């Protein structure tokens, strides 16, 4: 029963991983943009929520109403002002620029908020849970996180498959030069995509902050999990991102239980092993398109 519990808790954690991975996957899918600052952006989102909650006395959930638009605007602006100069067939410039951005964000956060760990307090719901059986209880926060992750990814998938904006994303993803000939302003579209990526990672950051304490330099660890989720699922695939996140979460859950039961191993270790196994056997990811 404790193993089943490990799987259930892993799925809940996987929701958070999927939420982290969404923006990374979208930016790569639309414009082959690799964002190494993605984890730092999540932490930035969490700190923005810290400021908003303390300044306005809001519940962290409610603070999303402010944090998400702020991050969306930041993503839009950064893409137009900086990232667009790095978009192209070669992903290396984007890696260098976002590596630099990550350093800037970490140090700016250290300057502003000091190195102390913070948390986002949502009250008693943090410790409340639903008992499914005697041995398995699901916390409200992880459940809400998973529900939000699925909603975000479902919304993204519907947007991509059903709307004019989504079609434009698929068009520039396929062939930006031809998309321009169809009258699509690809630079502006990239900025919209980055805005959405920032918005989703801000949500992920706030949920991370509600779930656990965080500090200014925690970004790179989150980036690692996000990357693993994206690679497991398949770069640029929305459902792949969800499945990658959930699988990684389950691996963490089972790995954690292994550690409890046998005294060695750890959640992240098993996660890394699953990641390596997928990379070795299905390099394009479980649902990934084959790369040309």
């Amino acid at each position, binding site marked *: 029963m404790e193993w089943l519990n490990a799987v259930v808790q892993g799925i809940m954690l996987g929701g958070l991983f999927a939420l982290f991975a969404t923006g990374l996957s979208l930016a790569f899918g639309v414009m082959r943009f690799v964002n190494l600052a993605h984890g730092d952006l999540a932490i930035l989102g969490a700190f923005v929520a810290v400021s908003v909650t303390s300044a306005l006395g809001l519940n962290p959930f409610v603070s999303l109403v402010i944090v998400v638009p702020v991050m969306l605007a930041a993503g839009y602006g950064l893409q137009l002002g900086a990232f667009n100069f790095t978009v192209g067939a070669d992903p290396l410039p984007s890696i260098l620029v976002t590596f630099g951005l990550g350093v800037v964000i970490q140090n700016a956060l250290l300057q502003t908020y000091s190195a102390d760990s913070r948390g986002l307090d949502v009250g008693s719901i943090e410790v409340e849970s639903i008992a499914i059986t005697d041995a398995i209880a699901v916390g409200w926060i992880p459940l809400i996180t998973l529900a939000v992750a699925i909603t975000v990814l479902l919304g993204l998938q519907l947007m991509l498959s059903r*709307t*004019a904006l989504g*079609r*434009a994303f*698929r*068009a520039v993803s*396929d*062939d930006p*030069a*031809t*998309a*321009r*000939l*169809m*009258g*699509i*302003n*690809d630079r502006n579209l990239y900025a919209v995509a980055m805005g959405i990526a920032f918005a989703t990672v801000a949500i992920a950051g706030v949920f991370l902050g509600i779930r656990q304490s965080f500090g200014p330099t925690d970004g790179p660890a989150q980036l690692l999990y996000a990357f693993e989720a994206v690679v497991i699922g398949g770069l640029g695939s929305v459902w792949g991102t969800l499945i990658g996140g959930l699988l990684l979460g389950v691996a963490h859950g089972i790995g954690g239980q292994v550690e409890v039961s046998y005294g060695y191993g750890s959640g992240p270790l098993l996660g890394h092993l699953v990641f390596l196994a997928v990379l070795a056997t299905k390099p394009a990811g479980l649902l990934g398109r084959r790369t040309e």
Partner: protein
Amino acid sequence: MAPLLEVVDVEKSFGVKVVDALCLQVEQGDALGIVGPNGAGKTTLLNLIAGDLSCDRGSILIEGEDVTRTSPDWRCRRGLARTAQIPRPFEGMTVFENVLVGAVFGAGVPMSEAHATPVAVEALERAQLLSSANTRAGALPLLGRKRMELARALATRPKILLLDEIAGGLTEAEVLELVETIRAIHAGGVTIVWIEHIVHALLAVVDRIMAMSFGIKIAEGDPAEVMASPEVQEVYLGVAPE
């Protein structure tokens, strides 16, 4: 009134001059053919007009407005459309979705899909591709891909349509079908600038021909006269003048 499209003293060089001090005027309703041997700079000229390449010198005007420094998507929204020599569909989408992209974004302002849908359907009709609307674009045969290039371009509601060797690679029967389609598009009021090696296809549509060689315009005027002129016979058909 300013001509629909004006190319003034345009130059482009990739180490050597590929387009050299070229001037061209296209009036509303024209059907202009461009001929020349491989490497004459025809496709480069089309890329300069469409904005895929930037001019080293000279300027491009659409209805008197200088668009030399503008992006391809801007020019598309000003009424310029082009088809690619090698068709480049968005492979993962259906034919209809491909055309819908042009219809939504190719007009002056983005329009809703509800408004764009009839435009896309009409473009598919004019390109005679409506029956394949729900086919995945990557699965189309060559003639279908060429028609889709046409439909996508038409969906942006162009005033002027640039065709880059659209008949290339087709069988004789397919060429004749496509020629009929292009004639109908021209008759429907779209100005045409068409690069083509298949001269009889060109002659069936255009009312004026420009011949290029090594980036320079060597002749322009009545199609029969241009094709018969000694300069064109020599450089284009490889026949020495007598």
